[in-house]
């Protein structure tokens, strides 16, 4: 069992979830309620990681983070170290490839709140913040929980993009999925099996927890 890889995977998953979900709530809410020109293009762009091969997405991310790109050059100038093949680079990639897994369930959850309920909140005199806190977030809760779990589960299990953007640096970018691949390459089937079993149980428990937490309370 590669504990270092497991720790890194969980750290990446938690960081992705913590950064993506709060910001994603606001974006998903705006997409659910706003009607603007080009909305379908924005939604299509968010969904691209669902259909694009991970290696293609990884290639573009690697190109965007490389020292020759404006983003990569800026990051290197500011921190003194390259963005590609670093944990921070992995995190940026993780935030991007998880966009559809986080945003789509939350957008659907906000869309499912009847417009009359939101109007009733307005007619009750509730402020924007109170409507969000007391009415919309509790009603969208199942979608938010689903988004968080899908993001974490997908981050822990992602292989292609992680390999392209982060490579296989122990303690820095080698996640548990990369480590399983690494162990199989080295014919260490025992370690690969142990880690695969762990991921299987982890996924099962996470999904069961999601079903319980996202159950409607009304």
């Amino acid at each position, binding site marked *: 069992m590669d504990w270092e890889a497991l720790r890194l995977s969980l750290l990446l998953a938690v960081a992705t979830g913590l950064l993506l979900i709060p910001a994603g709530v606001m974006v998903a809410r705006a997409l659910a309620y706003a009607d603007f020109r080009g909305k379908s293009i924005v939604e299509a762009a968010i969904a691209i990681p669902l259909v694009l091969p991970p290696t293609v997405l990884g290639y573009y991310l690697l190109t965007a983070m490389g020292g020759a790109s404006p983003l990569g050059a800026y990051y290197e100038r500011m921190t003194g170290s390259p963005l590609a093949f670093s944990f921070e680079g992995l995190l940026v990639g993780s935030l991007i490839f998880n966009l559809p897994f986080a945003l789509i369930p939350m957008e659907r959850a906000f869309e499912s709140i*009847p417009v009359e309920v939101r109007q009733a909140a*307005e*007619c009750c*005199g*509730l402020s924007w913040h109170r409507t969000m806190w007391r009415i919309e977030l*509790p009603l969208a809760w199942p979608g938010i929980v689903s988004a968080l779990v899908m993001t974490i589960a997908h981050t822990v299990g992602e292989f292609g993009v992680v390999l392209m953007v982060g490579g296989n640096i122990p303690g820095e970018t080698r996640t548990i999925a990369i480590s399983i691949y690494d162990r199989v390459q080295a014919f260490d089937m025992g370690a690969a099996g142990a880690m695969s079993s762990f991921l299987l149980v982890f996924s099962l428990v996470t999904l069961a927890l999601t079903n319980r937490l996202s159950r*409607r309370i*009304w």
Partner: protein
Amino acid sequence: MLSVEIRQASPIALDARFSCRNGETLVLVGPSGSGKSTILKTIAGIYRPAAGRIEVDDEVWFDSAAGLHVPARRRRAGLVFQGYALFPHLTVLSNVLEAVPPGPHRRRVERAGEVLASVKLAGLESRRPAQLSGGQQQRVALARALAREPAVLLLDEPFSAVDQATRERLYEELANLRGQLKMPVVLVTHSLQEALLLADQMCVLHHGTTLQTGTPQEVMTRPHSVEVARLVSLKNICKATVLAHEPAAERTILDWNGLRLEVGLQAQHPVGGAVSWVVPSGAILLHRRDRPSHGERENPVPCDVRHCVAMGDMVQITLEPIHSRSEHLATTLSVHVAARNHVTTGESVVVSLLASGIHLLSSPRAQR
């Protein structure tokens, strides 16, 4: 006092103006799609029309000329939605509490409790909407609307989602509650029965336009036009020509396809002009076969009975006037009166049309 004026051409054509005094109930009545709910949402502030002005107790909520639109959360309007729109995840108490104006928490809880008690929901505070019957949900929605201490109460088809027995009980409760409400109440319905039962003022809407506003009695007996008469389900609409006005006798004489009719003086219609006229079924009197009476001299009309439809202890009768067979008169008799006078399909009868009940209508077709 609520004063409303709304105008727009699209996406929903609106041309509505009416006012409603404090403590008065104004019922907006009209067919589905006539813009009733949109008008209510405009007053509440969740729909913004192209033009108009809405004023409540000297407070202007909307004035397109001044570019003013007070947002819904700052208007003191209590709105009961058609489907109630309760917050499904909150208890009854929390639903109402959300609408109670800011203040010390204890005072707000007391206020919510008082409002719930006033709509007979005490004891159900901890339930969620899904655990309530349709009638109880309607009362929670009403309590939530009242909890805001609204300057105007708006009810959007509040009885449409409950069964007939519950509806009748709720009519009675709302009628009782009206006496305690000091603000204008605007109720939207497509049910004429509801309008007649609850309205102080009735406003007839069609295609977003207010056609007539008045007391239910005025609208039902003195509709302004053929359109209004049809919208309020008046059936006996016929055509005639004005023969003369006799101010001394306070009567107008009509020629109804060769039959002379005397009606109350309505001198605004020119002599020689075509008019439509309407008579409520209550102003159609059947001549008794066994005992002729004095009133039978008033506009007697020989008719054949075209249809008789029994509806419980009443019979709906459709009559075909012998002199004008293309037109029909509808009236209702109790079963025993119909039986005693042999009123059955195919029989000949004579009815009197009470002069005071006949109302002349202006209609583009009649004016042609």
